[in-house]
């Protein structure tokens, strides 16, 4: 199992504008590392640079301890799964799986046993003599997976491997890929635009935007401590609600979009120095206001859309110029046009400096604990 | 130390880039070599020869400048040949395309046994110009030929199809149209089948009839294919040779002396390679104009799907 190290890696096509700049990251051996970002953010380009399918125009790529900038793809100890699977249409499933082994001149007997092992692992044993076009989407995906792991390469690269599958199958394959990676202990670099995949699969994830790293970290850390408004709105579904806020030093409170005020406790008074802020709050942290709720932090909003999903209810409303969403557990009989009293707690909000986009406060009341068989909410 | 590694890197990347170009050239080499020897070189050689009088072996003997061209332009025979070629194009291209279009339209209906008709209609594509000309030579035969038998059956005067200067070019054109129908039909049918069926379904929901659909959907959607087939037919017409050689040998009284036949006669019968080359240059210009028109107008009309 090998580590992959990127030092100041950058990429430019026209020698003027960089599509990827200043990437510094070390992917640890055996880690499941997810590259996530909106389309066009450069995540696929970065993966293809690691694979050797694109030239690296600046910086150093190390695979294991070796500098790999100029190694051909086949010498990088990698395997790769493509979005469209890239199965050879004229070869059978078995021939597809052993294709790379054949090229590497591995003896026939060993090819066969390795192919059978992998096929058994992925439930492909019955299909070994079929052509790719005779398989369903999910089966093709498995063949692509089998082809990647049969090589026993220490590093596996995946470029949006699940995006051509339907939602149900995708959820299933997520956990299957994760289990295989754990079992084989390979280093996985996984590209996706789907933040759910990133959250559920990655040991660590890297969020890319406009070719720059936005944040690297464990999924839940990123969820709880987003580095900037982009990350805050990209991770999480529905996304974090954002609105402009202005600090009032005299009253020591924040005025959110001119309609709602939240008191800032004395211990956080340093926050008041940043005048212009962005206020963020996750939909699940917007709670219904009860009788006990103080008058100031109470807010009555008009629902402009309601989605009742059975186990949860999501409704949206306007705050300033933004459409916000709130997510409540259980079923709530709400109608469009209803006026709903809600509350926002100081502990739940997230604050960003409007000038630098840096986070100055993260929510604090988010974790639930189990201590001595008692649930603490 | 650092600089040297940078220059090494630059060198290796240049090496790598040129590797691509060199590999590509390796794959392209056979084509480039053959094109050079059999297309580009002879084209320039033809232009070069057109300024010379030549000996029997086709070598340039005496530089005469544009004299070959002025000679041609004044020559009654060449003017005649141009006239015949233009008439031939006018006879064959519109009629041929319309016939093929008609066949493609009726063969595009979803009817039982349509495959049989499609095969029949495309069959002339598999027939060589020599074979077809021999068959038509018989059909046009003054005494035993089908056409004159038919005319006499109808009590009409017989026609000297290939021997009468007024009829010969028309007769050759008829056989040419027949010969080219198969190819044009096949291409047009392919074009028709590429039109999205949903267009017709939505037109049917709107209540459009057959002719309305033909005018508003089929013909516009087929326009790139039509344009392509018109161009190919034009070029084919300019290049016709075999039917002339077998049916009329350019006669009677040069009425069917089409340009390629004229070049052939001038070069390989009269050994006048200089003037033959000048005619070849003329042929080249004609086809160049047609192709340029195709690129200029055709590209714009292509509906990519």
């Amino acid at each position, binding site marked *: 199992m090998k580590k992959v190290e990127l030092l100041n890696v950058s990429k430019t096509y026209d020698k003027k504008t960089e599509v990827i700049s200043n990437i510094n990251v070390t992917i640890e051996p055996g880690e499941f590392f997810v590259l996530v970002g909106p389309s066009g953010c450069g995540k696929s380009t970065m993966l293809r640079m690691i694979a050797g399918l694109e030239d690296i125009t600046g910086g150093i790529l190390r695979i294991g301890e070796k500098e790999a900038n100029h190694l*051909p793809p086949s010498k990088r100890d*990698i395997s790769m799964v493509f*979005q469209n699977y890239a199965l050879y249409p004229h070869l059978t499933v078995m021939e597809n799986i052993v294709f790379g082994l054949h090229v590497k001149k591995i003896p026939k007997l060993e090819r066969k046993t390795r192919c059978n092992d992998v096929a058994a692992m992925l439930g492909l044993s019955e299909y070994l003599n079929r052509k790719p076009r005779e398989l369903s989407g999910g089966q093709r995906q498995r063949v692509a997976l089998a082809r990647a792991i049969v090589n026993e390469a220490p590093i596996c690269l995946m470029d949006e491997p699940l995006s051509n599958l339907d939602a149900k199958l995708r959820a299933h394959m997520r956990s299957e890929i994760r289990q295989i990676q754990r079992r084989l202990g390979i280093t996985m670099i996984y590209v996706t635009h789907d933040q759910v995949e990133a959250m559920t699969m990655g040991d660590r994830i890297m969020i890319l935007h406009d070719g720059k790293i936005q944040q690297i970290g464990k999924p839940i850390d990123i969820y709880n401590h987003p580095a900037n408004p982009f990350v805050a709105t990209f991770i999480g579904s529905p996304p974090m609600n954002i609105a402009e806020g202005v600090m009032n030093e005299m009253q020591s409170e924040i005025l959110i979009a001119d309609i709602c005020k939240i008191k800032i406790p004395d211990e956080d008074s340093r926050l008041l120095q940043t005048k212009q802020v962005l206020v963020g709050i996750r939909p699940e942290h917007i709670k219904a206001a009860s009788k006990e709720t103080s008058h100031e932090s109470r807010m009555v909003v008009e629902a402009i859309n309601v989605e009742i999903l059975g186990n949860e209810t999501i409704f949206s409303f306007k705050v300033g110029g933004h459409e916000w969403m709130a997510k409540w557990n259980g079923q709530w009989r709400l109608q469009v046009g209803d006026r709903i009293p809600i509350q926002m707690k100081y502990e739940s909000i997230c604050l960003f400096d409007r000038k630098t986009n840096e986070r100055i406060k993260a929510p604090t009341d988010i974790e639930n604990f189990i201590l001595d068989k008692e649930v603490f909410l | 130390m650092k600089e040297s590694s940078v220059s090494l890197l630059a060198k290796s990347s240049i090496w790598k*880039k040129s590797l691509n170009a060199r590999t*590509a050239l390796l794959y392209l080499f056979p084509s480039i070599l053959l094109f050079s020897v059999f297309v580009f070189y002879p084209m320039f050689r033809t232009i070069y020869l057109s300024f010379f009088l030549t000996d029997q072996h086709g070598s340039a003997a005496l530089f005469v400048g544009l004299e070959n061209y002025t000679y041609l332009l004044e020559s009654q025979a060449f003017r005649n040949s141009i006239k015949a070629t233009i008439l031939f194009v006018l006879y064959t291209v519109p009629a041929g395309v319309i016939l093929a279009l008609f066949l493609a339209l009726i063969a595009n209906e979803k009817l039982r046994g349509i495959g049989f008709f499609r095969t029949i209609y495309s069959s002339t594509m598999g027939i060589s110009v020599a074979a077809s000309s021999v068959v038509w030579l*018989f059909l046009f*035969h003054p005494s035993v030929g089908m056409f004159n038998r038919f005319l006499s059956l109808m009590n009409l005067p017989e026609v000297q199809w290939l021997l009468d200067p007024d009829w010969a070019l028309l007769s050759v054109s008829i056989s040419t149209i027949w010969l080219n129908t198969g190819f044009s039909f096949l291409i047009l049918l*392919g074009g028709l089948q590429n039109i999205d069926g949903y267009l017709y379904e939505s037109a049917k929901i709107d209540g459009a009839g057959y002719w309305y659909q033909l005018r508003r959907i089929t013909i516009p959607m087929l326009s790139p294919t039509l344009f392509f087939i018109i161009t190919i037919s034009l070029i084919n017409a300019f290049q016709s040779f075999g039917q002339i050689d077998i049916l009329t040998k350019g006669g009677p009284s040069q009425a069917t002396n089409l340009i390629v036949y004229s070049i052939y006669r001038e070069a390989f019968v009269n050994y006048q390679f200089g003037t033959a080359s000048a005619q070849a240059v003329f042929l*080249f210009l004609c086809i160049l104009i047609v192709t340029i028109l195709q690129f200029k107008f055709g590209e714009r009309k292509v509906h990519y799907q």
Partner: protein
Amino acid sequence: MSFPKKIVFYFLLLFSAFLLFFPVMYAFMISFMTGGEIMQGKFFPQTFTFDNYFRVFERLPLMKYLINSFVVSAGVMIGQLIVCSMAAYAFVFISFKGRDFIFFLFISTMMIPWEATMIPNFFTIQKLDWTNTYQGLTVPFFALAFGTFLLRQHFKTIPKELFEASQIAGLSRFAFFWRVILPVSKTSLVTLGAYGFLTTWNMYLWPLLVTNNDQVRTVQIGLKQLQSQEVATEWGVVMAGVIVVIIPTLLLLFIGQKQLQKGLTQGALK
């Protein structure tokens, strides 16, 4: 479709099919007729005897011509497939400086009619001492811009990930071409092959120029010989020759009609 409309279409279809196929049908009938029957202007022969066919093989070295035609057509077909597929591969899977320029060169060859260059080509063949040889009849046609475009169009539909996957597997460029691209493009190769065979089999002017004895002469020139020898009297023999010559290509066309139609439309229009 309504019943009366169907009747109209079937009538048009049948009528057109009759008109179009009449010359071939008639030639077929004549090929079984005696001289007398032909003079009487009959359409059906009294008996289907193969006399004319035996005679045409006596009159001409037709078997030799057929073999020659077959060798030349197959030769051009194979040559075109190799040369064109290599060029198309370079255009699609290798990016290099000057690709557009070379592509333009290929396009420009389509504007140069073969007939405009035949005089120098004739002398080239003479200088190479290739008159009356198979290579003189085949090699000039190996490179074909149309064929290159047709294959290029098909190669372009092959996902580039296939190339990348093979790179990761460590396949060389040529191995990728040979083991992946060619097998995957079988249908296009068949189309181009059939087209090349058909056009070469039917070629007339070039064999006329570069052959002057029976050595490598093709059937098309044989037909010309037959027709000029057998003036008026023995049309049955001539038509037997015609039928023998068109049967291979007609068969090829009947088998591959659908494929050819699809392939040619794609190559021509996209």
